[in-house]
């Protein structure tokens, strides 16, 4: 009896499931059917007398009322949105035309750029943004993105063909030219890459050509145009790509619900039927993403009226939100307080997000290590080279003197680069190797000069004493100690010079404070405040070093007086 009851319950469960599923299947429409119903209803509503004058009109209805789709497009973004006289062309422009044609209305274009596209939409001066806009989580709060995305770009690293670069390990320690505020900068700096910052992407190809930049990173869609130029394509190539960003058409967050729905469905259909792909081919832009998307939107589970909300079919927005620090709120309050009282736009980005805070802390620690290391290395090399140059043995004295002349003849940047090149030939690149190489280079440069001063002091001491002491070989410890005391002023001046020179270590990728703050300002605002703080920090460090060196000089001079 109990068995029969169990079987009946199981059967009832199965039947219940079937009954529950049937309405879903029956309701699952094709996107075409859903779109047809939506637009027919909207057209019928718009045809009702007086409907177009109603307040709070959804923009889909207004599009039919006015028989036009107002699209914000770019005018100077080769291959995507350009204008010559009255002729507009590009992928984005053609997509806008195809959408308008699909809805049976005329396209009306308005020029936008990265700064104006969202405000123009918010001011109701355009209905849709079609302007190379990446979809990230930050922008989700400003506009309503259309799913599926109509294109995808990635950041690409471009450089001369003659340089072999395949991935991140090959660019560690190198400099890459980027634009300030590019979303992928934070990712680049995490790979031990130095950045050279520019305000406008448009200058990057020129800087590659005039060799100011060896490598440049920017959207592949930006470089796509330059690679259509035979001269550029002959000399440069895309080394590798990263940080894929889906591009979204976008409508206003309010008053555009039905327009957004219509565009979602149209975008699905355009992917499935290869409309986007055809437009991309006609405009000679990359088609890899669109080919993959065509396959996705032909899948049965995606080719439905609910496909645009199915996580298995649509792509997520790029997560561009940086984790805030626990004290970010208080920092913002301080910034606002200062701005309210002084009118100065005061910004402290290094305290507001965790990646920036981490870079800032590491930068300070590394700067202090560099200063301490450079001081110690200068003293050490001064003693060693001073001793060798004071030697009476020709084979010890002359190589040391020759080395000193070479070091004096080499500009500081070149000496650093040589030290880094040798270090990287011995050890794999790392921050510690860069710091170590910088310490050795700064120590050698300043230590050789200080060593020369010690040797000159030894010479005067010997002259005064008639060469009695230290005969043959390396001079006696006592005489050498007195020579060090006598050259105290010179030694101290080169120690201060070594401390002042430490920021230049950023040139070879040492992650000291200058390097850290350059990285922070590449993805955050507040350059003026940041670099002012940097200057204050280094001046303060040098002032402390000057004070410490003054104490050291006094001690050396007391020693000499006692002797």
């Amino acid at each position, binding site marked *: 009896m109990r068995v029969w009851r169990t079987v009946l319950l199981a059967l009832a469960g199965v039947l219940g499931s079937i009954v529950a599923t049937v309405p879903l299947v029956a309701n699952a429409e094709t996107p075409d059917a859903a779109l047809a119903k939506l637009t027919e209803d909207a057209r019928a509503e718009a045809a009702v007398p007086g409907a177009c004058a109603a307040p709070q009109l959804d923009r889909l209805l207004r599009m039919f009322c006015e028989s036009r789709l107002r699209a914000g497009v770019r005018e100077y973004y080769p291959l995507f949105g350009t204008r010559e006289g009255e002729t507009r062309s590009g992928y984005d422009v053609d997509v806008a035309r195809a959408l308008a044609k699909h809805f049976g209305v005329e396209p009306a274009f308005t020029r936008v750029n990265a700064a104006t596209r969202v405000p123009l939409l918010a001011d109701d001066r355009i209905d849709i943004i079609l302007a190379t806009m990446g979809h990230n989580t930050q922008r989700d709060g400003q506009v309503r993105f259309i799913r599926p995305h109509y294109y995808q770009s990635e950041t690409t690293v471009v450089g*001369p063909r*003659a*340089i*072999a670069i395949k991935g991140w390990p090959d660019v560690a320690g190198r400099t890459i030219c980027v634009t300030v505020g590019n979303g992928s900068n934070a990712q680049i700096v995490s790979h031990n890459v130095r950045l*050279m910052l520019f*305000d406008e992407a448009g200058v990057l190809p020129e*800087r590659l050509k*005039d*060799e*100011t*930049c*060896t490598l440049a990173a920017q959207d592949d869609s930006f470089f796509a145009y330059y690679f259509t130029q035979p001269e550029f394509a002959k000399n440069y190539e895309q080394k590798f790509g990263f940080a894929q960003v889906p591009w979204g058409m976008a409508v206003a967050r309010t008053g555009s619900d039905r327009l957004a729905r219509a565009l979602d469905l149209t975008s699905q259909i355009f992917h499935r039927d290869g409309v986007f792909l055809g437009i991309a081919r006609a405009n000679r832009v990359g088609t890899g993403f669109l080919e993959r998307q065509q396959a996705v939107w032909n899948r049965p589970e995606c080719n439905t009226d609910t496909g645009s909300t199915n996580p298995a079919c649509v792509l997520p927005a790029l997560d561009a939100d940086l984790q805030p620090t626990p004290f970010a709120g208080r920092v913002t309050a301080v910034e606002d307080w200062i701005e309210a009282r002084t009118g100065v736009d005061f910004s402290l980005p290094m305290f507001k997000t965790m990646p920036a805070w981490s870079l800032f802390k590491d930068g300070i620690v590394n700067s202090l290590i560099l200063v301490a290391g450079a001081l110690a290395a200068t003293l050490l090399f001064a003693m060693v080279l001073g001793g060798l140059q004071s030697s009476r043995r020709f084979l010890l004295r002359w190589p040391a003197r020759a080395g000193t*002349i*070479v070091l*004096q*003849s*080499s*500009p*500081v*940047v*070149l000496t650093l*680069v*040589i030290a880094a*090149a*040798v270090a990287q*030939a011995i050890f794999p690149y790392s921050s510690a190797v860069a710091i170590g190489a910088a310490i050795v280079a700064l120590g050698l440069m300043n230590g050789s000069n200080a060593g020369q001063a010690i040797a000159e002091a030894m010479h005067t001491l010997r002259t005064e004493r008639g060469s009695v002491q230290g005969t043959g070989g390396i001079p006696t410890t006592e005489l050498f100690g007195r020579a060090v005391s006598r050259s105290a002023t010179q030694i101290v001046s080169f120690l201060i010079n070594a401390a*002042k*020179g*430490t*920021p*230049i270590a*950023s*040139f070879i990728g040492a992650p000291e404070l*200058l390097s850290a703050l*350059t990285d922070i*300002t590449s993805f955050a605002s507040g*350059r*003026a405040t*940041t*670099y*002012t703080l*940097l*200057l204050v920090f*280094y*001046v303060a460090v*040098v*002032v402390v070093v*000057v004070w410490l060196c003054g104490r050291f000089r006094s001690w050396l001079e007391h020693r000499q007086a006692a002797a």
Partner: protein
Amino acid sequence: MMGLHIPAEFFRSLLAGMVVNFEIAAIALLIGLAFGGLLALGRLGGGAVGAVATTLIGLMRAAPTFVVMFFLLNIIPRDATLFGVGISPSPLMIVALSLVPYSASYVADNGVESLKQLRAGSPLGALQFLPNVTRAFFVLVMSSSAGAAIGVTEGIAVILREAVLLPALGDKLVLFAIGILFFGAALQAGFALMRLLQRHLGRLAMRNQAIP
């Protein structure tokens, strides 16, 4: 290393780049002479002006050139204007301006010493200012290589661009040695000029002493 071939174009570019180094140093020294001269006069004047001048000289002495360069690069807006005229400096000018704290403080320190000598009735002692300024000029030439970090096409930038194309460390070291040779020759020539100037001033001093 056996296959190392350095094109003649490289040497032309290197010399052109070194001209930029000299250009930067000359601008920095000229501004430094003007600004440092004023500071020296202010310091000798004493009082509040003297205290301000002494503090300024101390701060400028402590300011690292490389940091000042990035500070100027990021603090001056690209579209800065004064009375409608664009005043945003070029990268070359930014490097030159970043060297001004050093040159001005150096000129001020040596200027004070020279003015003291002059007041003490030793014009030849005061003239020692000239070889000291020559030394500062060549220090500025060597320091201007920092411009490579912000894209100025000076001598070191030319060497580094060529080095990027060389995969072997040995080849790179040969190239760097050429760079040191070129810069070293300029530096040693400068020091020779300085010694010549010092000797000439010394002879002048001897002649003046000989005149009753």
